């Protein structure tokens, strides 16, 4: 099941129910949980970007932390140095990270598979050092980073956390729908054709460089928007917050959620935000249990061995199986 689903009544109802739950959640939980859910969506958006790039276009990136950082920093700079409103800064951050991703995608065009992973690995490792770089210090705040105040509530009666949550929810829904539309369009089919058989795709007249770089740009844009929301929620950007491991987390979430899927990204986001707490609790109670991220490393390898299609892939397969059973 490597192609996105058609709209079925079940899918549509599921999507609407999920939105409904999403809207209601902050009413039942305290601000801290709302804040965590906002973080989960920020991660989820970045993972959605990686899913489009890797799952649907077959290009690898272990360095999405770089684009996450570009989005976060450009939003912070727009607010701090240009006095933009936080919402305009989201659009600015999206544009910046798109351009950056598109430009990085140009040399990356000639790299295949492993080599692209290597180049993005380099980018991710170099990013914190670049952000600290003396010549940019006036803009980036150097080692100290930039403080970004939480946006004021959009609607009276909401706390800042709740307001930001609804903004993130809106953006997540819009981006998921846009992704779905892209994947079902001519360009989406071109992306998947390149993934499945580059030579055949080129023979059919697909402009491969254009599709690949644009996909890289879109993916970076998603990561940038995610980074921007992440910054608003955590109210802070600093160079070491965007180290190589952020890129690893994005990859881990994508794979566990299901890298060839759209909703899987949200599963991945929830996993990255909530599972460390659960695991931490376990290893606090039982001191012999290794730390969360080591356990997740084992978990990741097991997922790749046994369920490489991830959680959402498993759900889809389960549904298909039930349908076949019911049809007799």
């Amino acid at each position, binding site marked *: 099941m490597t192609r996105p689903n058609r709209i079925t009544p079940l899918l549509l109802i599921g999507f609407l129910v999920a939105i409904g739950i999403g809207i209601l959640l902050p009413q039942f939980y305290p601000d801290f949980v709302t804040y965590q859910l906002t973080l989960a969506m920020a991660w989820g958006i970045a993972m959605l970007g990686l899913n489009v790039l890797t799952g649907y276009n077959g290009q690898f990136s272990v360095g999405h932390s770089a684009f996450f950082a570009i989005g976060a920093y450009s939003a912070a700079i727009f607010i701090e140095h240009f006095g933009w409103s936080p919402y305009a800064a989201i659009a600015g951050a999206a544009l910046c990270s798109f351009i950056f991703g598109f430009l990085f995608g140009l040399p990356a065009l000639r790299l295949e598979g492993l080599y692209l992973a290597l180049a993005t690995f380099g980018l991710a490792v*170099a990013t914190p050092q670049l952000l600290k770089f*003396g010549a940019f210090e006036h803009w980036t705040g150097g080692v100290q980073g930039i403080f970004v105040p939480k946006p004021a509530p959009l609607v009276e009666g909401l706390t800042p956390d709740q307001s930001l949550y609804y903004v993130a929810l809106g953006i997540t829904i819009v981006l998921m729908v846009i992704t779905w539309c892209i994947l079902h369009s001519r360009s989406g089919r071109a992306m998947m054709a390149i993934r499945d058989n580059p030579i055949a795709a080129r023979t059919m007249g697909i402009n491969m460089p254009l599709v690949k770089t644009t996909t890289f740009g879109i993916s970076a844009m998603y990561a940038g928007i995610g980074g921007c929301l992440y910054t608003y929620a955590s109210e802070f950007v600093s160079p070491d917050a965007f180290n190589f491991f952020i890129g690893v987390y994005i990859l881990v979430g994508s794979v566990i959620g299901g890298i060839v899927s759209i909703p899987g990204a949200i599963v991945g986001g929830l996993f990255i935000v909530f599972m460390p707490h659960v695991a931490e609790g376990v290893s606090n109670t039982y001191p012999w249990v290794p730390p969360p991220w080591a356990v997740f490393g084992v978990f990741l*390898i097991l997922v*790749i061995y046994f369920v490489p299609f991830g959680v959402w892939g498993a759900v889809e397969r389960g549904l298909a199986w039930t349908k076949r059973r019911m049809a007799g």
Partner: protein
Amino acid sequence: MELFFQLTLAGLAIGSIYACVALAVVMIYQATDHFNFAQGEMAMFSTFIAFTFLTFGAPVWLAAVGAIAISFVAGLIIERVVIKPVENAPILNQIIVFIGMLMILNNMAGWIWEFTIKPFPSLFPSDWGVQSELIGPHHMGVIGLTLIVLFAIFLFFRFTRVGLAMRAAAANPDSARLVGVSVSWMLALGWGLAAGVGAIGGILVAPIVYLDPNMMSGVLLYAFAGALLGGVSSPFGAVMGGMIVGVLENWIGHPALSELLGFKMNELKLTFALMVIVIVLLFKPAGLFGRVVVKRV
């Protein structure tokens, strides 16, 4: 001028460490077409094992040899247990397994030995060899030891039956199998050797960068840059590439250059490694000493 020579020699020393790690990366790449993203963390873990021997009071050379031996066995086991299941899987799956290993090793090291930075003693006594203004005793020892190790590896691959079998298994698995070479064990042996060579790199670099679970991420990037520059299909190239990257990296840190450009260049060393990677991949993907691989479609 004296500073220039100092920087060059120090660059050669640090470059020989990159060469060790680059050689480990290339050995695995040649045998299995994988880039081992966990190579740096494996070397880091080996160094911590040596550190543990030291805390038990072992002399530093014994600790190093013990850690290298353990790394060899561990590398063998990792290949048999962790890597074998994804041998024929898509590239993405393989990369993710390496990333998983990286996470496990990094966090386990932090859990066992804590994330604090620890000093690690040099293998070489401070009054070792020729006293010189130009190069410190540790750096001189690093260059010497690396050359010996590399020469030994060359002899092993060139003149022993096992070395020949390993080369055969990497170059043409099917034919090697037909003449009775156990290809899968040769791969495991390659992993073991790579883990051992990487461990030497880790033990040599630890006195310079200090010991902590994140010490190798930069080193691994330089090693990748070196491996690509020299050519991933050539172990000799990887060694040369590692050396070149080490020297260039140190030249970039030269104060005169920073003064000339008006900002501190040594803050951009990792970016430099990234540039090397991207430029080599774009303009000479086979590297300086590598063969051009023609793929049949």
